[in-house]
């Protein structure tokens, strides 16, 4: 099966994020950049499917030249080749999905696997938008993906439990945390990755509308919560919750 995995470069989840004083963005000095953790899970799932069924795993990202690093990491995990759609300006989810839909038209994968959300903007939109633009079924928040011929059955993490849906390929699946535990790139994997194909395509050569319809005007730091006080015992805790905070 040919699987396309769109990935994003994001700050390491362990990074402390600080908003710049002028509100134009976040401070990026000292930020370590990684593959969005949910996309890493998507790469892992794609590799496992390929290991079982054969096929090809193609990574794609839309960003600056430096994003090659994350594509190389994904190639080192075992993906076959990668595409960088070069674009320096910020794009909104609609434009990202349009670009992906265009490339998918040329690449013809049977499955697109991507993270349910990027942990920087926390939007949780691209997979669903892409599925609609392609006219394909979607399964978001996947915790299990099973195949029988061309039919896919997906277990989804939803409110109140687990839901199961099914459809035929081609389809878009977005990953949740419990789908798998991504592997690390091995040393031989890293060596091999250097020789794998990484193609760059300028975004403006694709002929899709890139003008953002969602604009971020400014960022502000959230209100800070003050630490309260330590209590000495369980009895004291219950007492203050009852008489002072009046919540029990």
């Amino acid at each position: 099966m040919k699987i396309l995995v769109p990935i994003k470069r994001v700050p390491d989840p362990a990074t402390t994020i600080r908003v710049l004083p002028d509100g134009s963005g976040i401070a990026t000095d000292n930020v370590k950049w990684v593959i969005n953790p949910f996309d890493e899970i998507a790469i892992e799932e794609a590799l496992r499917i390929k290991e079982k069924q054969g096929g090809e795993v193609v990574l794609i990202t839309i960003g600056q030249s430096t994003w090659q690093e994350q594509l190389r990491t994904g190639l080192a995990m075992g993906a076959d080749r990668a595409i960088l759609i070069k674009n320096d300006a910020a794009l909104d989810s609609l434009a990202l999905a349009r670009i992906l839909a265009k490339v998918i038209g040329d690449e013809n994968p049977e499955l697109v696997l991507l993270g349910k959300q990027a942990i920087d903007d926390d939007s949780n939109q691209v997979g669903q938008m892409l599925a609609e633009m392609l006219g394909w079924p979607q399964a978001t928040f996947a915790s299990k993906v099973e195949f029988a011929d061309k039919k896919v059955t997906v277990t989804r993490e939803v409110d109140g439990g687990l839901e199961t849906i099914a459809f035929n390929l081609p389809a878009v699946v977005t990953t949740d945390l419990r789908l798998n535990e991504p592997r690390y790139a091995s040393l031989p994997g890293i060596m091999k990755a250097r020789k794998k194909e990484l193609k760059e395509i300028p975004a403006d050569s694709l002929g899709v509308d890139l003008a953002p319809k969602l604009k971020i005007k400014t960022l502000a730091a959230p209100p800070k919560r003050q630490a309260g006080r330590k209590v000495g015992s369980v009895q004291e805790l219950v007492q203050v919750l009852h008489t002072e905070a009046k919540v029990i």
Partner: protein
Amino acid sequence: MGDVLIFAEHQGGHFPKTTLTAVNAGLELAKKRGGNAIAVVAGDAPEALAGEIAKYGVSKVIALAHANLKNYVADAHAAALAALVKKAGAEFVLATATAVGKDLAPRLAARLGAPMASEITAINDDGTYIRPMYAGNAMATIELDGPVKVITVRGTAFDAAKPADSAASVEKADAEIDPSAAKTEFVSFNQTKSDRPQLTEARIVVSGGRGLKSGDNFKTVLEPLVDEMGAAMGASRAAVDAGFVPNDLQVGQTGKVVAPELYVAVGISGAIQHLAGMKDSKIIVAINKDEEAPIFNVADYGLVADLFKAVPEMAEEMKKLKHS
């Protein structure tokens, strides 16, 4: 112009609190943008539920009916709603960012060619919106540009709508769903059985983390306290990943966002991803044996103690309090 179509999600034949939140946010948006708030209930026979939501202050309810809308699936719902948005000439579509809202709204936005704002926490008078980014470490002011806009709201950021004096009229509409937009088969829903309040609806939430060490300890140590307090139970990602509790209990950036009157974090370190899901709670209590744990930086009351001793004691104290 300015009309707001509110997606009234229902589960198991009733509206969860998050739907009433969507209604209230929709009423606010309609007021600020100078339009009407219209609720839409989708289903195979949505009339009875439509009559229910009509009592909450909207100007009209549309009961959108089609056999393919019996169970929620994204493609059929997006197709039916998109056709309705066009027909009704609405400027906004609004839903709460529940699992269904998150799944549906972007697909609907793409079908409408509309920009979408995820999980907004405020509607500004000047036409902009506020939404958290970076696990709540940045609050963005954003602008949406286009004739139609799709918005999901964070359930904890808006109050639930209250019943109004009179009920709005209900209009039945037969949905149009092209077969090409009905490719998804709903197979089953495996509901987590629980008699406790819903996480997103409870006044008190007691959450356990890796410090509980096992699913058995959740049962024998944490649950008696949860029940003594009449609370909903939550968990950290670490506790869910380890299989101690079901996935839908995860609180955090990539789980549920809660803001109860009282949040009790037990054996949870307070990673930024967890804080993103609970730091707007009114009162936060932390019980942790490590006095340096970051959870204490956001806790109103911290107790440095071994949870295996403190939690049963607290359950006992709660019982005494109830009988006093």
